[in-house]
């Protein structure tokens, strides 16, 4: 009797070790690779906008396409901070200009509504990507540990920087 209990436990253990463990490792690795793809897409998207000053529909579509090629769904937040030099421009005198400039912010919906968005030197763009679905790795981890909350995302990427070129295009 004792022997068969050990066998059952051994079979369970073997099943976990032979299937679930490799599956989890593989799923984790896939997530890592996906994360790389997402980070690459995000950084390239941001750097491209930074050096050309133009956020066009085509660039945005390509970015979303690159994200969805990973078979996950994402929430891509684009925040554009536009430099408003006007408050500093109102008067001239013997003061130093540094610190007088103001930024106003456009969030994702506003940005997408105003595509193609032409930016100028000094604007700041920031892109944050999070996945909205549960990847296999997250599902497995949730199943195994039952500890991760809903907000824990396996794949995130963030990139931001100052725009270096004013575009007329």
């Amino acid at each position: 009797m004792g022997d068969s209990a050990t066998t059952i436990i051994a079979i369970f253990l073997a099943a976990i070790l032979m299937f679930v463990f490799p599956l989890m490792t593989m799923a984790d690795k896939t997530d890592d690779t996906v994360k790389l793809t997402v980070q690459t897409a995000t950084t390239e998207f941001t750097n491209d906008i930074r050096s050309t000053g133009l956020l066009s529909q085509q660039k945005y579509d390509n970015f979303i396409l690159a994200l969805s090629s990973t078979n996950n769904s994402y929430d891509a937040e684009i925040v554009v901070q536009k430099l408003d030099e006007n408050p500093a421009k109102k008067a001239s005198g013997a003061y130093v200009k540094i610190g007088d400039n103001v930024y106003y912010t456009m969030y994702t919906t506003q940005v997408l509504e105003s595509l193609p968005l032409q930016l100028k030197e000094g604007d700041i763009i920031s892109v944050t990507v999070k996945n909205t679905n549960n990847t296999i790795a997250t599902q497995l981890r949730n199943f195994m540990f039952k500890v991760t909350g809903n907000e824990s995302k396996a794949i995130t990427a963030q990139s931001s920087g100052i725009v270096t070129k004013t575009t007329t295009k």
Partner: protein
Amino acid sequence: MKLQGLAIIFIIIILPISMVLSTYVGNKINTSMTELDYNTKLLNSTYDSIKAYQLNTINNSFGDITNSKISDIEAAISTFYNSLANNFTLSGYKSENVMQEYVPAVAFTLYDGYYIYSPFFNRLEGVDITTDDGDPVDYDPKYSSPNQITNGLKPYVYYSVRYKNTVKNWDFVITYTLDNYITIMGQIGLNGSDPNYVYDSGYLYPISKINDGTGIYHNTETDSYFFEGIEFNPSDTEELKEYVGGIEYPYAKINGKKYYLEEKNEGNSFVKNGVRIYTNSKIFYIDSNGTKNYNQVNLYNDTKPQDYKDNSEFIKYYLAIKKNKSAYMYFKNAYEFSNMVFGDIPISEYKDKANQTQDRYGLEHLETTDAEYYDKDNNKTNELKQSGITPLSEYGSFEIFRGDEDVHLAGSNFNKHRKAIIRYVIETNMSTAISGFKSNAVDEFIMPKISDTDWETIQNDICEISFLQGLNMGLRKYNGYSVVANMLTKDYIDEDDIYFLTTDNTYCKTNDETLNRPNVIPSKDGLGGLGYYPGIWKINFERKKFLNEGENENDDTQEEFYYPLQIKGTGGTSYLGSYTSIMGSSNITEIGTNEYPDMYTYVNKLNNPTIKSIYYKALARERWGSFNVNNINYEIYGNNSNEYFLKDYKW
């Protein structure tokens, strides 16, 4: 064997495999992440460097002069190394030198050529220089170490190409720029049996024999020039005004420098060309230290006659400021030069920049195949391609100045060839500079492939290209580059850089759609005529600094900041940038599309004569007054570099 045993053996086999695999994949991922990180760091440092260059040049009235430019560039490059070291958290003692191991070259592209900052062997050969004691100097003492590898700017490389055609007796060089300005030097045709040498430069525009709006048309009766239906008449003059501190002065921009007239409406005066000249007025410019400099233009000497050298020069400056006709002169010169290059309307008594009387150059059939760099040999072009250079033959063979109506437009053959030359000149020199770079970091440096978007920036803007190679990223070594355009440059007047003043005290871009509504000020006095004020070069909206030394000798010197364009009666309030095109971009029409490939096309399609007139007049005026090295011409104008401008204000 029992099941447990099998399981253990399985684990023993699988575990190491999966560990090795995960480490490998992890490394790969880390490498790629590091690469992304380095790309961003390089871009940030390059931008810092451009920002430093802008700060140094914008307030410097001598910023166009080569010496000053070189020191500005060297300062910018020093910022680049510091910023790079900071970004890689290597700042501190000798941080610049640390990063120099990894930077094979930094290139600064300017209006008609570029500088490369890279290490070189500090030895002068074939020059005969001695010290005061008679010892030969065999190295450049500016860089301290003789016969050693030092970092520095290499000689300026022009965007130029040599054209040779033995049938037509052509052997000359054309230097291209970022716009439609070219310089021709060398032999064109024969003068009897001797070669005929030409040295000439100018802007290229199509030539039109009728006033139909497709090029510059010259009406010989009124001596007017028409471009796109807009008339430029010599009697159509303007008086430009700008603030320095809190006072408004009339001024003229001559060879990139602004000369302000401090007019005294009292004392001796006389009238010349319809202008009352007050002889105790003064003319000044803002010196590089920020003070008013009255020394360049001598005061009027009441005891001497009007044609006395100082006096006549004073009157010329006075007239140039009060009756500026830059826009007219720009199109007159463009018309004559373009006609000499590819037009067929004879220009009587035309003299080139070497003061030689010339007949037509007749380059309308100049082919790309005449260019020295054009290789018809397939082996050679393949060789070029392998080293990452795009051979000229890739662009095909065509007539460069095809006598059509589009030489100034983005889609023209000329523009295609101009861009090809710029790319070729940069690629060949850069790849040599980079592959010749030796350092402890990596054995062989190779020029990375620059993307087409970045080439577009290089061919149309002044920019900095930085290269970074050899940094360890784990599995590979880093090899990347970064291109950042300088959007605030005094070096040349871009077609996109003309802004408009509107009736609600704001300024906006030319391609702002709201501009087509009647909110443009037709001219400063509201009376029409040569629409000076509404069309303004964008640099004039930047804040400036000057040192106010006060009226009396005992006054303290005060640093003052001001905007050159202020709304009258507001005590220094400047015009504000429009939220539809300068600060934001909600109403901008895209330029660079199939419908509007360039600003000329956009302005013409607007079909609004007021905007057209303001735009062309502003563009022409700013270009005629901007710095150009060809304006300094000892052959024709002696040692006065402003004479090119002043000669048209004789009385």
